[in-house]
């Protein structure tokens, strides 16, 4: 498998707090579903935020798609790795579902018509077509999560980090999410699924990384 994200000796502590991550060495691959699990406060979300550049590590280095993480701005990392927050509300900006997908593309200079065509494909794929004129904030949690995923995939990232994606989803939606993860992995996109739901991770991940008190205690690769 092609390694896409490499972490070496990553250590991070929140201000005036204990260590959140201690000496993490990891390699995350494209085309693979990696489950990152652990108890509450074990450092799962912190690890995701470190990879995305939202938090800066105290020590260690990150390499993304062969580029030193320090050389990448937040927006550049966002173009390489898609990140779905635990709370989808934090990632919804636009006044309509369709606009949520198209506006970053248009701001980046993509032709409006092409952006709309791209959005139409994604809306269909995520079964959001009938909601395209609705206000994103008024959608159900499951619909919001699908919209966030659709908007993230519009950036064509090589890797996706999903923070607690199964929260608030019913059995059928979880199944659909798993199918989607499989499809994306099949397309060569790497996925890191952060979840404290060990069963969900066991059932669907190719590799399981277990964190405990900020340290990797198990890497089933």
């Amino acid at each position, binding site marked *: 498998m092609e390694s896409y994200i490499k972490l070496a000796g990553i250590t991070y502590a929140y201000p005036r707090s204990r260590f959140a991550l201690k000496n993490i060495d990891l390699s995350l691959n494209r085309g693979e579903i990696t489950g990152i699990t652990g108890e509450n406060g074990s450092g799962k979300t912190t690890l995701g935020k470190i990879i*995305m550049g*939202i938090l800066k590590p105290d020590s260690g280095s990150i390499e993304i798609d062969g580029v030193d993480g320090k050389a990448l*701005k*937040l*927006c*550049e*990392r*966002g*173009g390489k790795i*898609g*990140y779905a*927050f635990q709370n989808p*509300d*934090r*990632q*919804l*900006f*636009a*006044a309509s579902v369709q606009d949520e997908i198209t*506006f*970053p593309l248009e*701001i*980046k200079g993509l032709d409006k018509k092409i952006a709309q065509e791209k959005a139409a494909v994604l809306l269909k794929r995520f079964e959001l077509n009938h909601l395209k004129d609705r*206000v994103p*904030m008024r959608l159900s949690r499951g619909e919001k999560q699908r919209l966030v995923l659709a*908007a*993230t995939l519009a*950036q064509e990232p090589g890797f996706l980090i999903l923070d607690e994606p199964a929260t608030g989803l019913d059995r059928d939606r979880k199944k659909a999410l798993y199918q989607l993860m499989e499809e994306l992995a099949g397309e060569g996109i790497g996925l890191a699924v952060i979840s404290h739901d060990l069963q969900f991770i066991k059932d669907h991940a190719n590799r399981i990384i277990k964190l405990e008190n900020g340290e990797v205690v198990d890497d089933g690769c």
Partner: protein
Amino acid sequence: MAARIDPRTKIVLVLCLTSMVLVVENLAFVVGIGIISIVCALLLGVEVLMLIKRYRRILILILTLSIVQSVFTPDTEVLFEILGIPLLTAKGIAMGVKTFVRMLVILTSGIIMSTSNYRETIQGLIQWKVPYKIAFMTALSLRFIPIFTEEFQDSMVALQLKGVDFTKVPFGKKTQIYVYLITPIILSSLKHAEEIAIAMESRAFGAYPNRVEYLVLKLKGYDYGVMIAAFLLSIIYVWVALII
């Protein structure tokens, strides 16, 4: 002493500052009020540098709005033009600076009020015979300032993670970006309001006409001193600004 100042004294101070900055039109005096507001915040124990860092994004927004205000204010004295279209005028720049300082004073007033416990602020207003419901709503709005600031910063991060580079976005699209940033904050504030209303109802808010208070505030001599000084100095300041 700063920490012991009664919230009502701070309310008077903030009312004086915001009233002055809205009434006064003279540019130098408006800037003076901006400086006075920062000095007041410092005297009341606010770490302004730390807060400016926290509110940096909002300061950028205020600056952008001030520039827009400046560009769209016509005047005969044109300082900069493109293809005969006046972009910057002397009056425009003055308007931009005034807008910036006015918003800065309002922001600083919020910071000054945040140095008091919000429960004490409510109590202060109630002892001034402000209806409890209105006092409670006012205090809630103050309490939410840091939350909205945090949400705004989170939105900035989330937007950049969508691959949007703020430094490379053309000026015309920057305003559009701020609309996208403000939209979730407005929607989230509506959601917060709805949730708080439900929580208050479930705790039987306003079920009885009379309330008893455990916390009772008492104005000290220096509170009266600060209030009278603020009031009188504001009148003198406005009077001088209007006659010059």
